[in-house]
């Protein structure tokens, strides 16, 4: 009888299962050796400079001022300073993501407009902005535009509600007074009311088949409850109109020129990529959808709003995710214009406390955390959207 193939096993040196395990063991060993070498060298190098590898230094007094952000004074710890940097990054990243998406949507639709001029303008915008480095754009906005704005004494103003100068922008804002808590409760009630009205109108729409405007009614209900609450809790909101002082603005919502320049640069740059994503995703919607919508008698705007865009945005979510992450990472370039976000503040901490290794680990860890958060939100969105649309 021939060799029994079912029970015969190959010799060890030819046994794939053994070799795989051995290969992995060798690989892991190599990695461990390299890592250990590096770590020992690091310890040695750090001790040569009379430093250490712990994070205790974060509790020491910072001693440097940060020109914008949450409440902070130089007597607080390095950790507090770092927190200010994190908040500043989140401030610019969130606002940037929202504005860039809006800009990208508008320009993306413009890119596919039937109007030749609008199409070309959008195309020129994309081709110019996409091919210029983002750092060049940010620096350009800062030194060539923001710094060139009028000085504080001659600040440009829009109906005395918005002031723009090279010391920043001030916008009329609201101020909360007593009774704001009660009004907050009314706001929650208003949200609930709006949601209820939305559901009611949807049900009416489905039952009767007659078009029942949902959103205007829901928004109306929301506003009514908000107004009632406003009146009942004693008008707890007052206007905070900024004034131009000698050295800066007083009152209002103030934004520094560095923030403005960074925001402008990031939004315009990321907006161009989002434009292409929107355009590509709209083009990815099967042509038949648009034709069917036209056959149903929808106007071009309705076609876009009800048929094309919802399907397009489904496809767009993964690349949008990576663009949002890019915006977050590009905010680190604020180092070049002095906006105190994470990298900029960490740079100062490194110069004051000299622990580059720990600070860089902290910075990278923070960015990873923020990237993961953004990706998690986008992935959840992706799942929610694709579940509905699966065929």
């Amino acid at each position, binding site marked *: 009888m021939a060799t029994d193939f079912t029970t015969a096993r190959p010799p060890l040196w030819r046994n794939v299962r053994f070799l795989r395990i051995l290969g992995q063991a060798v690989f892991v060993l190599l990695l461990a050796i390299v890592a250990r070498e590096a770590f020992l060298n690091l310890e040695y190098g750090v001790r040569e400079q009379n430093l250490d590898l712990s994070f205790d230094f974060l509790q020491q007094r910072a001693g440097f001022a940060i020109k914008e952000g949450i409440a902070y004074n130089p007597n607080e710890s390095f950790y507090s300073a770092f927190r200010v940097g994190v908040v500043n990054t989140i401030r610019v990243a969130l606002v940037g993501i929202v504005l860039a998406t809006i800009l990208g949507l508008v320009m993306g639709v413009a890119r596919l407009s039937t109007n030749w*001029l609008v199409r070309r303008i959008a195309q020129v915008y994309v081709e110019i902005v996409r*091919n210029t480095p983002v750092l*060049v754009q940010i620096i350009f906005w800062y030194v060539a535009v923001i710094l060139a704005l009028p000085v504080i004494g001659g600040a440009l103003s829009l109906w005395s509600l918005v002031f723009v100068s090279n010391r920043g922008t001030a916008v009329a804002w609201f101020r909360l007074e007593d009774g704001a808590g009660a009004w907050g409760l009314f706001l929650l009630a208003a949200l609930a009311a709006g949601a209820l009205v939305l559901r009611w109108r949807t049900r009416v729409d489905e039952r009767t088949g007659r078009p029942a405007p949902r959103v205007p009614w829901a928004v109306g209900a929301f506003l009514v409850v908000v107004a009632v609450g406003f009146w009942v809790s004693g008008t707890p909101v007052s206007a905070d109109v900024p004034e131009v002082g000698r050295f800066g603005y007083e009152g209002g919502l103030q934004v520094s020129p560095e923030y403005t320049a960074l925001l402008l640069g990031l939004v315009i740059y990321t907006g161009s990529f989002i434009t292409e994503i929107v355009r590509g995703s709209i083009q990815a919607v099967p042509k038949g959808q648009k034709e069917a919508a036209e056959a149903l008698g929808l106007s071009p705007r309705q076609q876009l709003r009800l048929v094309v865009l919802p399907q397009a945005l489904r496809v767009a979510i993964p690349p949008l995710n990576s663009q949002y992450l890019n915006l977050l990472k590009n905010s680190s370039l604020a180092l070049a214009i002095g906006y105190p976000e994470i990298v900029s503040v960490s740079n100062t901490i490194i110069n004051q406390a000299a622990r580059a290794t720990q600070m860089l680990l902290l*910075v990278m860890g923070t960015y990873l955390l923020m990237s993961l958060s953004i990706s998690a939100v986008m992935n959840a969105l992706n799942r929610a959207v694709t579940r509905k649309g699966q065929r």
Partner: protein
Amino acid sequence: MSGRLPGDLERTPLPVVDEPVVQVAPTRPPLTSGEWVRRNLFSSGFNGVLTVASGALVLFFGFQLVRFVFVSADWSVFQANLRVYMVGRFPEDQLWRVWAVVFFLATLVGLSHGVLVPRHLTRRGLVLRAVLAVLTVGALVYLVRSPLVWLLMAVTVALFAVGVVAGRRLGRRLLRSLLVAWLLAFPVVVLLLSVGDVSADQWGGLMLNVIVAVAVIALSFPLGILLALGRRSSLPAVSWFCVGFIELIRGVPLLTLLIFGRFVLILLMPPGLTFAQLVRAIFMFTLFSSAYVAEIVRGGLQGVPEGQYEAAKALGLSTTRTMALVAMPQALRSTIPPMIGHFISVFKDTSLLAALSFSELLFTARRSSQAFEFVGHQAEALLPAAFLFWVIAFSMSRWSQRVEVRLGVGER
């Protein structure tokens, strides 16, 4: 559409092919200009308003821009510092090396252009080229004062033209030698620019950006492929490590990696062993780029149909052979658009070296407007740098579109 990688959406518009000069008879008569205007600009009331409004905006900003560029701007900061913008503090008496490199590259690029890019002489193309040539010559007349530089530039253009003609004549036979020449080009250039009386510390300006970009691209390409293969490996230890590495690098900004390279990297090496700042920066940049290349290649490998692997197995090819001869060529072909897009990003990201005080183009542009005789002219100093970046990135993206058409990417 199946088969389209998400990366495509970000980078590639559909390839545009100009209509050839000889035309098939059109199926309907071409629009008269009046009809064209009515259809494209004023097709509805809303469109009409849009046209008028955007037209007014374009005219206004265009007018301001033209007035700035030609009348009110003082370009002397760029004019006086032209050499620094281009090559930094490279010693003047050694500039012949740079010119030698430029001639070499002009010939090589001309040959490649002739071999790879099909002839596309349309009337629109000719007009565009003529306009561009006139503008370039005009700008150069204003900027360049030395007749020697004029002569050298003329020689460069001549070499390029000769290269194109020769490339068109010799055709695809030249591909293999071209490939070898391009592979050798980088080490040769680096040697020429660093051996002898010059050192790599003296590189600067646009030259530094280009060298760093090429180095990073060349080094990160194989590394990225290795990472992608590692990520797909069936050995969990290897694939976890690769995944972890890629996600870590992609999650942090490039600037933090460069700062890491400047201050922490040497601590990780044996005491006494140091590398030049530029080498460290290129190293970290390469790690960064290879993670993105790995993702692109991974996408490409995912696009290779399963049947190919099965057929290779049926033919008895080992895993390595399958990968090298069957999977990779197909994968790489489909990844050319996003890969070139990534390389363009690498070139743009070399501007980040300015944040670390390397005297590349952006840094020199900033510093030149800070000298006391030029203070206040930041815009005039930055715009030429921005323009130089833009020209190179835009040309690369246009060139890649035409190469795509030529290589038949996406057609199967």
